């Protein structure tokens, strides 16, 4: 029997506006509400609402179907502000009893690199928000963009989580399969590894005509899943795969709609919520002494901290933690945390070749190039620092 854990993550960056060097000291607003609203409304229409609606129908039509979702606090706040129907749609899906919510950091941040207390605070904030909105308490944690290491696992275990998620990379797995339950480094938590090949087949290759498996049908994909023969297979993708990264014209909604039907034809496949997998007995301990993630070809921290501009911007912002917290001003703390969102650093990447395509796909909504992203961020940070000093 292969347990099928189908997971998707919902996130929207909180984009900052063009803040001129000439405005440093003016303390104007930092966030581009108009752009954030426009993009959120568009993606809600194209992806969130139709997909959430379809998942609810599937959960009602197929008694075995189950789904796992994680979202950031940044996403939830924007949903509340710009498109509350999305919150309602998640509630409706949750009411079917087939949904498990996975924990994340509230601000989609690199908070682990700031301080453990900040990291813990952001996770607790997230749990509180999920509890308040959906009455659920997540048991499994996934760090921002699946950032992971032994040290992250140790820190997360202190908060009582039963399992943690990251990328199923050969770099630390070696010959081992991602489809087995492991213990996370030195902890007693389960470590669940993403099957990146089967995930990317849907998330990236689905509409690639040059791919030899094109077109990917639900029938074919269910066959692949049933031939895995591991205790489980975890698919983890961007939620926007449905309708935004892959447009409706690609047939992605037909694929999703028919997947449960074709999965049901394979008696060795069983949909699960991620938390159920903690019942499986771990077969080994997986040691990850360095940082991994699911981003870029490098699968490490280089998508956010790979060049000197990114490092400078991050270190400058990080250094404000103590002064910000010393003010005990809730608004300043919230602003600082929003400025620590990993997306700001992601836009500053100067990687070449394959990764640049993905970076510029997301950056293009906001900036012409990584230099503009850096300078604009630094202008805001300078203004913010002046505001702190005046406090």
């Amino acid at each position, binding site marked *: 029997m292969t347990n099928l854990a189908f997971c998707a993550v919902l996130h929207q960056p909180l984009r900052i506006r063009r803040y001129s060097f000439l405005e440093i000291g003016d303390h104007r607003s930092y966030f581009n509400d108009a752009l954030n609203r426009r993009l959120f409304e568009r993606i809600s229409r194209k992806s969130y609402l139709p997909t959430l609606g379809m998942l609810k129908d599937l959960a009602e039509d197929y008694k075995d179907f189950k789904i796992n979702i994680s979202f950031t606090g940044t996403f939830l706040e924007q949903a509340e502000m710009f498109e509350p129907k999305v919150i309602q749609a998640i509630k409706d899906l949750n009411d079917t009893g087939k949904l498990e919510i996975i924990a994340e950091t509230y601000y989609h941040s690199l908070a682990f690199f700031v301080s453990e207390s900040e990291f813990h605070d952001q996770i607790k904030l997230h749990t509180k928000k999920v509890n308040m909105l959906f009455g659920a308490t997540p048991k499994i944690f996934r760090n921002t963009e699946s950032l992971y290491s032994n040290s992250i696992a140790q820190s997360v275990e202190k908060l009582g989580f039963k399992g943690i998620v990251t990328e199923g990379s050969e770099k630390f797995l070696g010959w081992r399969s991602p489809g087995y339950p492991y213990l996370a480094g030195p902890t007693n938590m389960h470590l669940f590894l993403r099957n990146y090949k089967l995930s990317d087949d849907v998330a990236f290759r689905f509409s690639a005509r040059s791919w030899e498996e094109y077109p990917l049908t639900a029938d074919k994909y269910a066959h692949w899943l049933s031939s895995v023969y591991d205790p489980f297979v975890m698919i983890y993708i961007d939620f926007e795969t449905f309708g935004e990264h892959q447009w409706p014209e690609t047939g992605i909604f037909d694929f999703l709609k028919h997947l449960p039907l074709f999965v049901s034809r394979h008696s060795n496949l069983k949909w699960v919520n991620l938390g159920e997998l903690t019942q499986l007995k771990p077969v080994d301990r997986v040691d990850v002494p360095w940082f991994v993630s699911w981003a870029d070809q490098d699968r490490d921290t280089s998508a956010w901290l790979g060049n*000197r501009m990114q490092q400078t911007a991050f270190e400058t912002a990080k250094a404000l933690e103590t002064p910000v917290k010393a003010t005990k001003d809730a608004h300043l703390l919230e602003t600082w945390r929003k400025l620590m969102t990993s997306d700001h650093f992601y836009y500053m990447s100067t990687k070449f070749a394959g990764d640049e395509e993905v970076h510029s796909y997301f950056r293009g909504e906001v900036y012409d190039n990584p230099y503009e992203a850096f300078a604009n961020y630094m202008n805001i940070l300078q203004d913010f620092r002046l505001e702190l000093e005046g406090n």
Partner: protein
Amino acid sequence: MKVALLTSELYPVFSGGLGVAVYEMVRHSRRINRDVNFIVTLPQLDWKGDLDAEVLEVPHQLAFTTYTFTREFNRPDLDWDAANSIKDFNTMMAQLLLTKEVDVVHANDWMTILGGMELKRHGKRLVFHIHSTEYDRTNDSPRPWVVDLEREGIHLADAVVTTSQQMKQQLINRYGADPAKVHVVYNGIDVKKFRQILHIGQNKPGEKVVLFVGRLTVQKGVWELLHAARLVIEKDPEVKFLIVGGGEWVKELIKLAIDLGIQNHVIFTGRVSEDELLAAYRICDLFVMPSVSEPFGIVALEAMASGKPVLVSKTSGVSEVVQHCLTVDYWDTQLMASKILEALNYPVMAHSLVRNGAHEIEKLDWAYSARKLHQIYGRLKG
């Protein structure tokens, strides 16, 4: 193969981008393929230089250069003189070349197209290379007869070459050029020549220099730059603007600097020698090319090769081939000022621009441009 290359200017005798482009393309053509021979045909310039090609000076001194001509566009009497001078030059050039074995005629810009067309009528294959149009040179106030000349050349030529995709689009939209025969050949950069100066000297501490290089004409955007400069200097009085180049707008621009109250922060050098130009690149902290209209913009590549960060207007051809530069709309003087200050205040960014830019421009060798020209010649010769 024998190519007659017709041009009104040729580096190093004082020239703009056209003269540099023609010079470098011939030089690199010869390096990559010695079977392509050139007769570079010029008006009488007393040209002295080093070029592996036959240089043929037509015994006719042009009454105007393409630049001084532009300034006088509201004086029909001068138009008449200029037109006659150009006509005479082209007629003599065509006659001279008819006595020679030539496979392809490569005319550069409107001032040599009459000769090119004449040779085409005698059975030669014609390439019309457009480095700028009459619209670009006159800030969209073209003389109709020059536009007509350009249009005729574009339609008659067997192949049209230009310096950027934006230019190609302009030729299609304004001149009705057949897209299939318009080829984009980007200009290049001789990295070695400029890189030599990288480690020679450093600036005075504290003082920051923003450099502009180009002719002082409307289309170069200096007016916009000075307005941005005022905002920059308000924020940081240590910044100096170095304006290198001469042109018909000098007086107006000096007056503008005074009106803006920034005269002590702006230095107009006038025209400079090549050594002085290299020195200007060396001492600057940021190079700015705010052109309203810029078919390519070789100076931006020169600044990058000199190890300097550059800010260019989005309307420049060079912004199509270079990613590691800052860009701005020429009319957005507020944003221009902001970007100048950012480049001067965030050294990490300036270093990243320079380091990544250095890799990038190595690929923009003139040899690559020359190779593309050879392909076009080859196809014409059949």
